[in-house]
């Protein structure tokens, strides 16, 4: 698969670092932010192919970030990550335009597969 430009927004540093490790090993470019505001700024600045977004952030609701990202054209693929593995939250995220959903905790293979499904190689 071609290298992707991936942004991880999560307030847990271990998750950010782990995603960074797993995805860079697959040849992707990975950047991470630990607050919603920094995440929005990064999205404004860069051109990302995929955003991995935690739905519960200390400063903002992840679903609000999702709405902002959806307005961006061309928008990145959006994968929502959450510790609340409940269907209503997942449904809401999908309705707001998320491409896929990862419920924490997940393995490296699940993460890679999810990104592959979200951005199939052209």
């Amino acid at each position: 698969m071609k290298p992707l430009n991936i942004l991880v927004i999560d307030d847990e540093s271990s998750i950010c670092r782990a995603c960074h490790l797993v995805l860079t090993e697959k040849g992707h470019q990975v950047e991470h932010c630990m607050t919603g505001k920094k995440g929005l700024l990064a999205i404004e600045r860069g051109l990302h192919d995929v955003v991995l977004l935690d739905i519960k952030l200390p400063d903002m609701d992840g679903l609000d970030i999702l709405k902002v990202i959806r307005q961006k054209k061309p928008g990145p693929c959006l994968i929502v990550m959450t510790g609340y593995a409940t269907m209503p939250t997942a449904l809401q995220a999908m309705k707001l335009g998320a491409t896929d959903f990862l419920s924490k905790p997940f393995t490296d293979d699940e993460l890679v597969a999810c990104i592959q499904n979200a951005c199939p190689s052209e």
Partner: protein
Amino acid sequence: MVTKYKNYLHAIREMIQQLSPAILEKHSLDSLQEVLNVVVTKFAEILDAKGALIRILNEDTNKFEVRAAYGLGKNYLYKGPVNPEKVLPNSTNLNKVYIVTDIWDSPRVEYPKEAWNEGIRMMIDVPISICNQAVGMIRIYHTEPREFSDIEQDFILAVAEQFACVIQRIKRMENQQVQFNYLATRMEKMSSLGRMAAGIAHEINNPLAGILLYSSNLIKKVPPGSVLEEGINIIIQETQRCKTIIQGLLEFARDKEPEKTVSNINEIIEIALGIVDNEFRCQHVHIEKNLAEDMVNTFLDQNQIEQVFINLLLNALEAVDNNGRVSIRSAADQARKCVRVEITDNGCGISPEHVKHIFEPFFSTKTNGTGLGLSVSYGIIKNHQGDIRVFSEPGDGARFTVELPILAENDEGKKTP
């Protein structure tokens, strides 16, 4: 005699007048005490006695305890509870008044010395019974022995009979209140545990995500046969196990509204049986199925109810040994407008102490149990405005009953929140 007769009618009327507010209007739990006070006072006054006393059976201690007294000294009253067998032996006719004149030698008198010192020379015992069971006794005390006419004895018995009805009614009210309080507390406890569980689940899933990502990544870098391999695999498996537990926890915490459709509960039972069939076969446990032919459709969430039956069936399977018996039966109770499903096993049974906590989250007697199956089931049934109960004794199997109201699609608006 004629004068007395008129007096007694008057006395009964007066007693009823005094008792009415307590029984009919207040409906409060203090009303039993008010009734008791009126009865002892009036008995003593009308019969021109020194005093009167009411003992009521305490069901916990199986002793008659003084609940109201009039005209008696503290020395006598402080003698404490008495055994029902002593004052009302089994042979006692509960519809008869007993007159004791021999204070010192009567087996009915538990504290003769104190009674004598109180100036008591004669006692009249009136059993109070409900459904032919003694629930208490009225004792009337006289300082001088005297004759008691049949009319007087009839009067005493008539008042005691009415009084027994009052006690029964008030006890029923008390029981309802106790039951209500118990259920209200339990609901509150479950709901706060649920909220807490959701918070914990989120907090734990985050660190688990870090552990699982690193460990699943690390295992690929370990050469096959390395000493690290086993350890990392265990970390991965155990983290996955935590994930499963937490998912169960979130299921419980989530106040998920059932997605109801018109369903036949027999069909849901068949699906659940199909899912657990293999497990039962492996353990050579036979399931006896007895489904009502006249089952009516009702409005419920098939997936959720199926989950409840699977839980109950697997619990039953765990409770029985190889070659044990589990039965499932369904019935439509038109009179109570509900459908009922019973799952019974002949397994090890449940102790009363465990029965009390069985629907609480994290309560488990299994070594590998999460303690969430039954609490999730409980939540599901309550969300259907239904009821789930357990009946069991250690060593004598267990029976779980699930009752769900018979609802049509358009009844949904009437449900209680």
